[in-house]
């Protein structure tokens, strides 16, 4: 804050005068021979009181630092060290004895003719200085109390006391003298007596202290302290308690002042009400007394200051605001405050100061304005009322801008800008001070909540309504507080304007216009140049300050400085440029350009380059000039369509007129960071070519539409490829230098052999001249003897003119941003120019690869494959190339989705379920072929099996040169290592696999006819014994059908018995006979076998595994009649689920009978129910209509009760009475199950003719109950005659 009187801005605090700590005065008064005060003996330094004083002084002086920004409200004093006899400034000029005394005024009053404010000043910094440095609110005096030396023998006590009393009286007198002067001013006097520790314990001390106080007239409270030498920490405590004790009196002191001033102000405002205003005309030229408004300002300001002393910020703010508003009224009227007078200037400062104080609050006239404003601003900021502070600051500036216009110092004058700059600067400095301690700059952007939980809590707190309201409100951008950098920047801008205005004023003066602006004359008088220089110094200072602050406030602390910083840096550079420090400017430009280039802000770069170039010119740095000119050419900076030649003319002029510092090596202008001078694109027609085949390419070089390069003396263009070959050089040659450059030219580069490189440099000639927007196309082709990737790595243009040798390297970029949307072009016709777009991405490179080997892979097989066989697949590989090839084969069997299918492939001695790797096929001479047989074995269900076959061939010539053994890549990987001369041929094969033989089973169940074991047969209870009673006979009929389309040679069909507890094969129709022979598709074989099944008692519905399997051994019948390898198909018997029975009657009758010969009919009634008994009656009903049979035996009878599992046989003799088929009887049996319901009506029991007894498998209805299926109810007998 050095731009305004510091007094007006400093945060005020109660002032404390401290006397008696002067080190030199600290010679203990008790010492009779005082040591020479000029030099400090070590003894004096070790004196405890000396140390105490020094420590006290330190502790007190650090209490408070004088600062503009001091928002803490701790009870600390502004400590000033004075002499004990320090005098205060006189209240009035006249001595009190003077009779005029009561009418006299303070020396600083405008009413006092000798005052600097006479006659109409308002208030001066000196007044504040008076209160901060000359007048304390509290006076603290440190003194030594007399201590008589330790009692020595022989010394009289009375003598000692008398001595003490004498010394104390002296002390009291000194204090009383001091007390008199402080009392006059209402200043609190406090005495601190320093005594040794021994003294504290002295019983006489109390009495002595009382005596001293009484004698000196000190206040009873907080006026007398005793301190003995103590440690540092205790001193701190003492200082704190001293301040606490004196705080009240200090505040009281300032309150009294305030009251006094308020009385005076009231008196004045009353007076003003009836005082006639003096017309300014009347008083022109003569001293005018201060007007009532002025007095108001004066008193308000004083009250504000006193309030500030008391640390009552709100009261101070109020008074400052009042002062400020009155001041505004004064400024508003030229009558009250005629512009451009001394008072006016003063008032302005005051107003400014008030403003600052209000913001953190600052007033003084002239200066005071700014300060008042500053003070106001400060006070607002203490309370974090940023927008109020800013709005005050803004309205202050606006009001005074208006006033300024009224005063004739509007925006066109440098004074205005100087003043405005000062405003911004004061504010910026204030903020800077503030931010160094407690002030936080708010962000208009909602800061992120530190945690989601907190956020939730906040959102709970803030009601939805409240948030909405805030959203709607928005904010006044004018009142958004920003960091001080911005305000420094503003100040700098204003100062810059001020300089501009001043220069204009100077100019107009030199043109003869007389300027009468007093300020101007004032400034001019000093020294124009100094002013200009000072102004530039100030604003470069301000810019630098802003720059630093922006850096500080910019969180991006990476190598990338903020863009705001760059902008300010640019301003600084401009300032340097304006003030002639070109080297500094250049350094800045260099740094700034980097970011602008990277972010391609051409619009910002153009002026920068121009100015940079101007700097380079000024510095005489020709190399830099050339560099910049080339870059400007590239950007087309400052170029217009109308004058495309301007830049190249500049460059030519420089080249012709100057000499480079180094002539024997080229000046390389590297534009890799910025745009290149020509748009270049390289297009290869083919993405890939074979070794030795030329790959055509085009190199398109076009100039920008607004920059002509027609006279730039390009001498050659070197085209560097990415391989280690010498560049292709295109030399400039033009028959007619004045000929107009056509818009599209084409030159042929011819064929370029890259590997092996030709020893001579390839050179061609072409006209390397570009008009604005013209294009040169260089066409050619490259070829390589080995596989590689070819691209153009860079182009180097050489410019030679007089002594200059410049090289401009350009890297053809694949995608220059501005051309990224335009596909690269291929010139197909020069006249008219016509281009074909190349819509490939990799157009900038061409890949040279080995020629593919011509390998023929033929695969043959007789599909489909049969499940269970090893299916042969023939792979025939033929080398149709001219080279010898080493062939290796990979086979991959893809995994199938079929469950439990274990398939495998086999070749030679390798066998795998997935991959057969690197099956060597040997070296094939040209034309030779190799046949490989691959076997595919299938298992599981029918379906498709997929095989990938990869044939890799490698030229043997290459293989010998390659040290590394060839590592065959995965057969599915299509890419081989690029440099190996290797080709892979891929084949994929899908082989359907089908069953060779189908089988169909039918099963019927029969009841056994042999007698059941008796109920009591003990054998049946033995373990491991089949339960013959429950056994059912199953007859399995299996039909085997050959479905293999090729036909099979069946070698053998056998049934492998796998009898187990529940089922066993009783007999089988497949004897050991020979089925062998060729079976064609559709041939069938039928087999029957009887199986004895014992259903599980507990789980009658569970299927029972078939007790055997048919094994068919077969061979594939090849198309050529030969037989394939032997294969086996196993066909298991079906699983069995026999039905169950309850009460059943079995009728056993012979099929035929002789006439009249008796035949036995046997009826067996079985109770197969597991738990219930059965009571059955049997009834034989001969056929009523045809009396064909004669029956002998029981016709109607009752069978004894059948226990579960019991059977009853009943035999009847029947004789046929007539020939033919007859039914011996509709035999019937009725039975009742259950012992209890024996009397009930019985059910009819099924009678089954065992000859027809065939039941299908157990059938269940929806509810899981078995459904009984009964067949063969009626028994027929053929009676033969």
């Amino acid at each position, binding site marked *: 804050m050095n731009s305004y009187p510091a007094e007006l801005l400093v945060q005020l605090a109660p002032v404390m005068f401290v006397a008696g700590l002067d080190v030199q005065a600290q010679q203990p008064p008790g010492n009779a021979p005082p040591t020479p005060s000029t030099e400090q003996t070590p003894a004096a330094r070790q004196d405890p009181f000396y140390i105490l004083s020094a420590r006290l002084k330190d502790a007190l002086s650090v209490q408070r630092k004088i600062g503009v920004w001091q928002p803490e409200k701790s009870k600390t004093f502004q400590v000033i060290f004075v002499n004990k006899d320090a005098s205060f400034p006189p209240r009035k000029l006249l001595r009190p004895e003077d009779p005029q005394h009561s009418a006299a005024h303070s020396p600083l009053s405008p009413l006092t003719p000798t005052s600097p404010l006479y006659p109409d000043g308002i208030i001066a910094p000196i007044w504040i200085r008076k209160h901060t440095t000359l007048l304390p609110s509290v006076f603290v005096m440190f003194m030594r109390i007399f201590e008589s030396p330790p009692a020595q023998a022989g010394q009289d006590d009375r003598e000692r006391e008398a001595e003490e009393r004498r010394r104390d009286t002296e002390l009291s007198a000194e204090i009383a003298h001091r007390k008199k002067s402080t009392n006059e001013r209402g200043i609190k006097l406090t005495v601190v007596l320093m005594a040794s520790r021994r003294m504290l314990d002295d019983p006489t001390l109390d009495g002595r202290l009382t005596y001293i106080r009484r004698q000196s007239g000190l206040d009873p409270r907080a006026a007398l302290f005793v301190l003995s030498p103590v440690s540092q920490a205790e001193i701190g405590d003492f200082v704190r308690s001293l301040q606490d004790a004196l705080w009240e009196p200090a505040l009281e002191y300032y309150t009294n002042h305030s009251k006094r001033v308020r009385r005076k102000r009231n008196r004045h405002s009353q007076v003003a009400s009836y005082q006639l205003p003096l017309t300014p005309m009347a008083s022109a030229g003569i001293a005018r007394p201060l007007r009532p408004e002025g007095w108001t300002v004066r008193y308000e300001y004083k009250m504000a200051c006193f309030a500030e002393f008391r640390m009552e910020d709100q009261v101070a703010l109020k008074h400052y605001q009042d002062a400020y508003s009155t001041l505004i009224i004064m400024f508003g009227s030229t009558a009250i405050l005629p512009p451009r007078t001394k008072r006016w200037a003063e008032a302005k400062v005051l107003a400014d100061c008030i403003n600052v104080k209000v913001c953190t609050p600052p007033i003084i006239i002239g200066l005071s304005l700014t300060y008042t404003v500053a003070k106001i601003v400060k006070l607002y900021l203490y309370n974090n009322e940023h927008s109020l502070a800013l*709005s005050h600051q*803004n*309205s202050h500036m*606006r009001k005074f801008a208006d006033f300024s216009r009224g005063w004739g110092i509007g925006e066109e004058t440098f004074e205005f800008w100087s003043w405005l700059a000062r405003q911004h600067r004061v504010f910026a400095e204030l903020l800077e001070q503030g931010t160094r301690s407690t002030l936080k700059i708010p962000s*208009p*952007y909602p*800061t*992120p*909540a530190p945690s989601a939980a907190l956020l939730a809590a906040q959102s709970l707190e803030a009601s939805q309504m409240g948030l909405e309201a805030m*959203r*709607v*409100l*928005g*904010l*006044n*951008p*004018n*009142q*958004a507080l*920003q960091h001080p950098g*911005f305000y420094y*920047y*503003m100040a700098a*801008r204003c100062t810059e304007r001020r300089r501009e205005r001043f220069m204009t004023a100077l100019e107009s003066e030199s043109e003869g216009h007389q300027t009468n602006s007093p300020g101007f004359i004032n400034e001019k008088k000093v020294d124009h140049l100094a002013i200009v220089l000072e102004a530039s110094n100030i604003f470069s200072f301000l810019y630098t300050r802003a720059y630093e602050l922006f850096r500080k406030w*910019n*969180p*991006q602390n990476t190598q990338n400085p*903020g*863009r*705001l*910083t*760059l*902008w300010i840096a640019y301003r600084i550079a401009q300032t340097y440029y304006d003030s002639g420090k070109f080297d500094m400017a250049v350094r800045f430009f260099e740094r700034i350009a980097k970011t*602008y280039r990277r*972010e*391609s*802000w051409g*619009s*910002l770069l153009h*002026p920068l380059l121009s100015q940079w170039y101007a700097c380079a010119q000024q510095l005489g740095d020709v190399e830099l000039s050339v560099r910049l000119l080339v870059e400007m050419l590239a950007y087309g900076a400052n170029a217009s369509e109308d004058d495309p030649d301007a830049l190249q003319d500049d460059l030519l002029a420089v080249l012709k007129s100057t000499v480079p510092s180094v002539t024997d090596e080229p000046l390389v202008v590297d534009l890799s960071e910025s745009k290149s001078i020509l748009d270049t694109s390289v297009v290869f027609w083919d993405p890939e070519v074979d070794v030795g085949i030329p790959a055509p390419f085009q190199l398109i070089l076009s100039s920008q539409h607004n920059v002509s390069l027609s006279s730039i003396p390009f001498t050659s263009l070197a085209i560097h490829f990415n391989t280690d070959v010498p560049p292709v050089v295109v030399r400039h040659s033009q028959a007619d230098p004045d000929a107009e450059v056509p818009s599209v030219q084409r030159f042929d580069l011819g064929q370029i052999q890259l590997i092996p490189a030709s020893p001579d440099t390839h050179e061609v000639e072409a006209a390397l001249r570009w008009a604005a927007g013209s294009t040169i196309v260089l066409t050619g082709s490259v070829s390589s003897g080995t596989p590689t990737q070819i691209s153009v790595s860079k182009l180097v243009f050489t410019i030679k003119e007089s002594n200059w040798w410049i090289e401009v390297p350009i890297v053809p970029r*694949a*995608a220059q*941003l*501005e051309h*990224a*949307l*335009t*596909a*690269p072009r291929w010139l197909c016709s020069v006249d008219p120019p016509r281009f074909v*777009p*190349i*819509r*490939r*991405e990799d*157009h900038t490179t061409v890949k040279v690869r080995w020629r593919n080997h011509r390998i023929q892979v033929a695969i043959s097989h007789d599909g489909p494959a049969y499940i269970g066989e090893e299916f042969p697949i023939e792979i025939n590989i033929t080398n149709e190339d001219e080279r010898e090839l080493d062939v290796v084969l990979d086979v991959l069997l893809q995994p199938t989705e079929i469950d439990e299918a274990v398939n495998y492939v086999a070749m030679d001695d390798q066998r795998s379920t997935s991959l057969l790797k690197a099956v060597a096929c040997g070296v094939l001479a040209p034309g030779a072929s190799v046949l490989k047989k691959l076997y595919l074995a299938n298992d599981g269900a029918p379906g498709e099996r997929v095989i990938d076959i990869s044939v890799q061939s490698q030229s043997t010539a290459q293989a010998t040169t390659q040290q590394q053994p060839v590592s065959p890549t995965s057969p599915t990987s299509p890419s081989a290592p690029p440099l190996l001369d290797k080709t892979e041929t891929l084949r994929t094969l899908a082989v359907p696999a089908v069953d060779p033989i189908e089988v169909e089973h039918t099963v019927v169940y029969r009841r056994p006819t042999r007698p059941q074991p008796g109920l009591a047969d003990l054998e049946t209870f033995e373990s491991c014994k089949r339960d013959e009673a429950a056994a059912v006979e199953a007859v399995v009929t299996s039909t085997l059908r050959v479905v293999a389309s090729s036909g099979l040679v069946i070698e053998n069909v056998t049934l492998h018995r796998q009898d187990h507890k529940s089922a066993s094969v009783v007999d089988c129709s497949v004897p050991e006979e020979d089925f062998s022979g060729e079976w064609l598709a559709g041939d069938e074989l039928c087999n029957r076998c009887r199986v004895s099944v014992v259903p599980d008692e507990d789980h009658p519905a569970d299927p029972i595994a078939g007790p055997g399997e048919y094994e068919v051994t077969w061979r594939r019948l090849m198309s050529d009649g030969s037989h394939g390898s032997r294969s086996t198909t196993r066909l298991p018997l079906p699983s069995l689920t026999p039905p169950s029975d309850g009460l059943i009657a079995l009728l056993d009758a012979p099929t035929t009978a002789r006439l009249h010969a008796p035949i036995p009919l046997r009826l067996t009634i079985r109770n197969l129910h597991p738990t219930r008994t059965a009571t059955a009656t049997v009834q034989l009903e001969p056929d009523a209509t045809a009396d064909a049979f004669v029956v002998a035996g029981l016709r109607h009878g009752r069978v004894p009760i059948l226990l579960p599992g019991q059977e009853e046989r009943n035999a009847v003799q029947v004789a046929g009475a007539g020939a033919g088929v007859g039914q011996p009887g509709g035999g019937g049996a009725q039975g009742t199950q259950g012992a209890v319901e024996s009397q009930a009506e019985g059910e009819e029991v099924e009678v089954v003719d065992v000859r027809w007894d065939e039941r299908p498998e157990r059938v269940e209805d929806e509810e899981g109950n078995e459904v009984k299926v009964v067949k063969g109810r009626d028994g027929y007998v053929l009676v033969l005659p």
Partner: protein
Amino acid sequence: MPPQLRLNAVAFVSPQNHPILIRTFVQGQDELKYHYIAHTSLDVVDERITTAIASKSTECYLNLLYTMEDVAVYGYMTPLKVKIIIALALTDAVVRDADVLTIFRALHTAYRQSVANPFLRLNAPIDGYNDHAVLLAAGSPKWKAFRKRVDDIGKALQHRFILGSDSGPFPLLSEEIAQVLTS
């Protein structure tokens, strides 16, 4: 009377911080100044974006970036990271966020419509172009529609400004802009 917003300049900046389009609507003022303003405000935008990412905010509107000299600079970022920066003339009045947002939305729409132009990609290589180039191309002098749309929005605002007090409450603004956009 609602405050009148005066649009001084508009800048569209690509995600890579390259300028797409910068238009100024102030007669006789240094156009370069707004280029600088657009460029420098990217600093603040970056800062805000960092904040937004940290708080997982998806808010496009970046609020007031800074005020300098006679302009207040506001920022907006589209979901695809294109930054829109406007400079409003600085007045001592509350600027409602809703109003600024309306302007931003209008500009965003203008931008979206312009970038959707399929002809921007007419000559592009099939697989080689990137979207960034498309954004930049939209602002290039070759394509006039984007300029026109932005200028129309600027004019609509200026028109309001000239009309001044009798143009009624502010919500009209969005209608006018909507009209401009649909016409």
